[in-house]
């Protein structure tokens, strides 16, 4: 990792000094050993803040939205998931490719900061769940790349967790989700971190629209959960950031993955964030789609 880290710093330095980029987005070490947090570097003098370790899980691409109305030329370090998020944002026309320099970084999977926080210091920290299931550890798009491509450790989507829920009876399912969403405090961290939740005005911020009351209870929270999953259906790039940031440990990816699974079986396998053009499953149809409603 240290090789990549020094290469990162060198690249950032070169970009800033040459003026090719006015700001570089990367990771810096956070307050805890298991925190590596986003950092925006504007001066070549600061490049040594940049780090690359096993906790650089946070998806940086969403930060590109912050620069759409500035004069900046933004360079960003991007793992496989960051690049899929980047494509997602391009397809949603939320960012413009000419303002960005994507520096691809192959990733071997990040450790779970959540698990680390609960473990005694020095204990072996497991890989985060989203990373364990990752099929695109290498950048899918980049302007330049540092490090060597890694061999993906997963080739197929793992839906065993979704299937476990599907196998429950209806009451058990309802009870499970009610318990999960009772924990939810509707802090919207999952939405804020999500590269697919990139609306300028989220419906959950439009209190006058009547979509949702301010009550925080299992019912309203589930409305929020299902609605958000529906909004990112066909657009979720499976980075797992929603779950990572959830302070209440709601298994949000279980909702997103349910849609991914059903889209794959019903309408054909689809991978969000690999392309920036072409139809998105829910803005598209085929006359030959399965017919169950006769």
């Amino acid at each position: 990792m240290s090789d990549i880290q020094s290469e990162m710093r060198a690249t950032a330095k070169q970009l800033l000094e040459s003026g090719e980029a006015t700001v570089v987005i990367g990771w810096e070490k956070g307050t805890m050993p298991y925190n590596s947090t986003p950092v925006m570097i504007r001066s070549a003098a600061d490049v040594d803040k940049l780090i690359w370790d096993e906790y650089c899980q946070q998806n940086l691409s969403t930060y590109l939205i912050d620069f759409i109305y500035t004069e900046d030329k933004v360079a960003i370090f991007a793992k496989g998931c960051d690049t899929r998020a980047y494509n997602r944002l391009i397809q949603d026309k939320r960012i413009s490719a000419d303002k960005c320099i994507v520096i691809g970084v192959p990733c071997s999977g990040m450790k779970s900061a959540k698990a680390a926080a609960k473990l005694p210091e020095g204990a072996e920290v497991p890989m985060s769940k989203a990373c364990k299931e990752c099929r695109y550890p290498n950048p899918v798009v980049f302007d330049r790349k540092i490090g060597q491509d890694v061999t993906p450790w997963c080739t197929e989507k793992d839906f065993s967790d979704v299937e476990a829920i599907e196998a429950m009876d209806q009451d058990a399912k309802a009870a499970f989700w009610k318990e999960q969403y009772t924990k939810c405090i509707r802090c919207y961290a999952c939405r804020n971190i999500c590269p697919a939740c990139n609306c300028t005005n989220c419906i959950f911020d439009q209190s006058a629209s009547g979509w949702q009351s301010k009550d925080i209870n299992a019912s309203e929270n589930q409305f929020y959960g299902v609605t958000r999953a529906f909004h990112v259906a066909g657009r979720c790039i499976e980075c797992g950031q929603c779950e990572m940031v959830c302070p209440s440990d709601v298994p949000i990816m279980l909702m997103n993955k349910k849609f991914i699974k059903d889209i794959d079986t019903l309408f054909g396998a689809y991978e969000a964030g690999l392309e920036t053009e072409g139809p998105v499953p829910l803005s598209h149809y085929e006359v030959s789609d399965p017919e169950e409603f006769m």
Partner: protein
Amino acid sequence: MSNNSVENFEPKILVFACNWCTYAGADLAGTSRLQYPPNVRVLRVPCSCRVNPQFVIRAFQRGIDGVLVAGCHPGDCHYTTGNYYTRRRFLLITRMMEYMGIDPKRFHTRWISGAEGPKFQQVVTEMIEEVKAIGPNDKLRDDMKVEVKAVETNE
């Protein structure tokens, strides 16, 4: 006031009907005097593709016992393609509702044309019977509202 006990339970079912086919089909059931139980309420939308799945979840939150989304058969949409989007969305939402624990008997999507008065009668009758058999919906429901109801019943 509807009774909560299962024997006397009279469910309420909301039907989202597209203006051109299913609403007309329901009208035809009427002009043909085809009888069905009075537990359904039809809400008219221009096209089934206007039905946001969030409306459906909202209805369950507020205590509805069953929801039917109905429109023209694929290929017959007044707006050419609307119901193809309905089909995609509701294939997914049907599965998601079941995943959330809502009994699949409570939520259906059906194609009912303007000529299919008998089909409208049959679909809603069957649905009412099925929902009656499984009792009132308590999933996804706003607990506050359920509590209010309990208080009212006690009075």
